[in-house]
């Protein structure tokens, strides 16, 4: 992290591949993992004489993304971004420049903080180059292989404001954005397949300053983990440099995952002049009002809305960590179902965020919603103790099944009220001094008695019921004594 006295400032550029059936400007399949150069045609190969025709579905997805990010949507223009690279068939990329489709929005993080969205524009993806030999870089390679299947795949690039202040916050933003993009149906959110790619701008400044420092752009961030590590590394590198009286050069840096460092790719002096100009092969994009209305209608339920619903059901604050966890893991429907079945939604929420979340390791997940709701009810009604309920729940996550049957199989049965009363009476009788103090109002002793009850019953007692019995007994004594 930064040297003390410096603040980290992060802005992110996220490229999101759209889940259209076909590419942005032609009818070739938009699909990942096919044989190289099989999903190509004159248009996406940029053959002489070919012309682009905009995919309507891509525009719809872009509009949904704009709506999800609270952006203003405008009449927009495509530009050509000119530079030479073998994986770019036309040696220019069709993108949007000074008049993008979506501008000026925000994304609300689970913490409640809003991150500004500068723009979310449409552009085409490039092909994929594999440099063979020479450490995988183009100028040292023996030869290079190019796969144009990805060339022309539709992207929306989402540019955030420099509003994030830590690696954790940057990760939180990407996770939240990913959730929103998946909710709109525009993206499958798969970072590992490159359908969500993150570039990151990092700068540091003296804590309390409102001016931005010189930033570096970091590329090659393939996971949330590398994003967090790269920001931390970069913030430390920059703050140390400034601390030592050196300057930070504005440049693009490459993240080396195995070495855990960033290194310089090219400096601003060598930066490309992209010679942007309006793409004459396309007309102004002016989606009719119905498209926008349709986009809003098909938005899906965004994570922020899901958190609101869960928090409301459980009567807890929206910005709570438990709520965020449950929504991030996609377990919120369980809260809703439990709440609908009359179970305590707050208890359901805790069980999900702790026991269920702890069991999620990518293995079998067989928990049914109605079954979960019944389990919560059983715990709540004292049919199972908390410890029992937790054990049953873990089994249900792995193996499925009805809570009653799982509990019976494990030999769990909450003690009947009479039996529990008996145990409480025994424990009180065996510890008269402690009882005197508890009866005199020393509440600390409650824990002592509950511990005794737990030990005496081997964990099969409903401890909440036991403390209730203790309280009643004290109240009864007080009443009898007066």
């Amino acid at each position, binding site marked *: 992290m930064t040297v003390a006295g410096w603040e980290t400032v992060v802005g992110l550029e996220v490229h999101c591949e759209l889940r259209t059936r076909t590419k942005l400007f032609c009818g070739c399949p938009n699909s990942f993992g096919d044989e190289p150069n099989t999903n190509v045609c004159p248009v996406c190969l*940029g053959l002489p004489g*070919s012309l682009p025709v905009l995919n309507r579905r891509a525009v719809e997805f872009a509009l949904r993304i704009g709506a999800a990010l609270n952006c203003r949507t405008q009449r927009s223009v495509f530009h050509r971004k000119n530079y030479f690279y073998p994986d770019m068939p036309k040696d220019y990329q069709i993108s949007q420049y000074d008049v993008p489709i979506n501008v000026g929005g925000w994304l609300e993080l689970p913490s409640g903080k809003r991150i500004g969205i500068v723009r979310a524009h449409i552009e085409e993806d490039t092909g994929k180059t594999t440099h063979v030999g020479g450490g995988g870089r183009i100028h040292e390679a023996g030869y290079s292989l190019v796969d144009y299947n990805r060339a022309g795949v539709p992207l929306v690039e989402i540019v955030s404001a420099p509003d994030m202040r830590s690696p954790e916050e940057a990760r939180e933003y990407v996770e939240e954005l990913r959730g929103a993009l998946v909710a709109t149906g525009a993206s499958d959110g798969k970072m590992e397949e490159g359908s969500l790619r993150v570039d990151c701008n990092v700068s540091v400044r003296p804590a309390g300053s409102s001016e931005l420092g010189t930033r570096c752009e970091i590329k090659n961030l393939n996971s949330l983990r590398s994003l967090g590590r790269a920001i931390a590394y970069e913030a430390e590198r920059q703050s140390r440099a400034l601390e030592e009286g050196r300057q930070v050069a504005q440049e693009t840096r490459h993240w080396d995952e195995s070495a855990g460092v960033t290194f310089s790719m090219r400096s601003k002096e060598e930066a490309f002049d992209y010679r942007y100009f309006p793409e004459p092969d396309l007309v102004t994009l002016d989606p009719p009002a119905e498209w926008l209305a349709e986009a809003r209608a098909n938005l899906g339920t965004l994570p922020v809305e899901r958190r609101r619903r869960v928090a409301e059901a459980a009567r807890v604050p929206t910005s709570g960590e438990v709520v965020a966890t449950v929504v991030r893991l996609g377990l919120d429907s369980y809260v809703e179902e439990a709440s609908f079945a009359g179970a305590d939604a707050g208890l359901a929420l805790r069980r999900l965020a702790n026991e269920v979340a702890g069991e999620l390791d990518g293995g079998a997940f067989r928990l049914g919603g109605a079954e979960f709701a019944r389990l919560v009810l059983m715990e709540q009604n004292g049919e199972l103790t908390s410890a029992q309920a937790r054990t049953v729940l873990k089994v249900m996550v792995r193996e499925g099944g009805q809570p009653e049957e799982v509990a019976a199989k494990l030999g769990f049965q909450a003690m009947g009220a009479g039996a529990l009363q008996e145990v409480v009476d025994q424990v009180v009788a065996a510890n008269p001094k402690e009882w005197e103090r508890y009866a005199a109002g020393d509440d600390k002793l409650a824990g002592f008695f509950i511990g005794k009850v737990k030990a005496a019953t081997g964990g099969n007692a409903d401890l909440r019921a036991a403390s209730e019995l203790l309280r009643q007994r004290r109240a009864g004594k007080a009443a009898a004594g007066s």
Partner: protein
Amino acid sequence: MRVREEGPADLSGATGLSAQEIAARVRGGELSALGVIEEHLARIERWEPSVHAFNLVMADEARERAAAIDALVEGGADPGPLAGVPVALKDLLCTRGAPTTCSSRILEGWRPPYDATVVKRLASAGAVIVGKTNMDEFAMGSSTEHSATGPTRNPHDLGRVPGGSSGGSAAAVAAGFAPLALGSDTGGSVRQPAALCGVVGVKPTYGLVSRYGLIAFASSLDQVGPFARSVADAAAALDAISGHDPADSTSLPGPHESAASRLGRGVDGLRVGVIAELAGAEGIAPDVARALEGAAEALSSAGAKVEEISVPSVTYGLSAYYMIAPAEASSNLARYDGVRYGLRMPGQDVTEMYMATRSAGFGPEVKRRVMLGTYALSAGYYEAFYGKAQKVRTLIIRDFEQAYRTFDVLLSPTAPTTAFALGAKTADPLTMYMNDVCTIPSNLAGHPAISVPFGTGDDGLPVGAQVLAPALGEPLMFQVAEVLEQAAKGQAK
């Protein structure tokens, strides 16, 4: 009368039939398409070595296609409105499986895997593609001298240029190699060679004809247009290739009125404005100016109201064009990098390979314009050059709109001079660029214009008169052009 030896422009030995006559007779079974194509191929064999109109003559394919059309007719089917009509294609229109070179080394060996939309439309109209014609490399030039395959010569005088960039197509029609040809017009590349070769040449409204499969020079200006030996044939050809194409986003939604719909109506009562800034432009030769006066008088005596009109901003057209067209070209021609198709020269790494390939593959005029355009788009210069040129474009559109409030069509010379000698202007690009001064404004405005032969210069060579019309004003434009054509014939008698 000047006595001349038999030459390629002397059509007395040719069929003498117009495209429409050929089509009518082929459809009626009176003439075989194969016979028509044989006759044209014979003429090509006789004169092509002197003219060099073609980069590729597709004799076998043409015979096969003609035989298929004859079979259709025999079977009682109608091959279409251009049945059996030989058509020559400028070598920047993609033809599936047949080399398409733009007269450039850089596309050496490339065969497009698809047909341009206009090529498909010609095929479905029953036309027979006879070959691919020579041009200035990537359509950059006004003389067809900037070609990797050598210059095309003017059929009227083999020591002179045919104009350009579609000089091969113009020469092919003038020499009777085909009654119709297609070219592309970015700043005058159909109309100027039409004028210099004494044929009719059309630049349609931007978006009327699909650009899909037309290899781009300057995308916002390029339009495919026909050459013919008569106004009516040109209209028929335009009707065959025009119409909405979903593969071209800049294609106008149809349907459109037929370009031939107003033929035969005369010009009585029409208002014709002679553009003062072009008729009197610096560099317009006195014989061309005289011919234009003759054209104005002819329209006037046919009943049109002819007056001079000022369209001030057209004088900036040439400068604006030489910012916009090279800028777009610099981007359009980036893809010729040796990676995927065409020429590839060896290099130590990818950058060297790019440089070696492009240095060897492009001729000097293409390099000049790519550099011009790259500069015009550079950071810090964009507004001063490209941005300002776009503003001129807006001004020209506005001035034309103003003019069309008073006039139905406008009139100007097509080219400043008659055909010039080979090599006369290659050393001085600016003099060469001046050839397009009268034709460029229509491209910048996106409006249609046509060049019709009208009279001859002091050297006995053809002069063209240009009729300009507002967007989608083709029917009116052809109506006026036809009257000029008739008047010109009357004068020649």
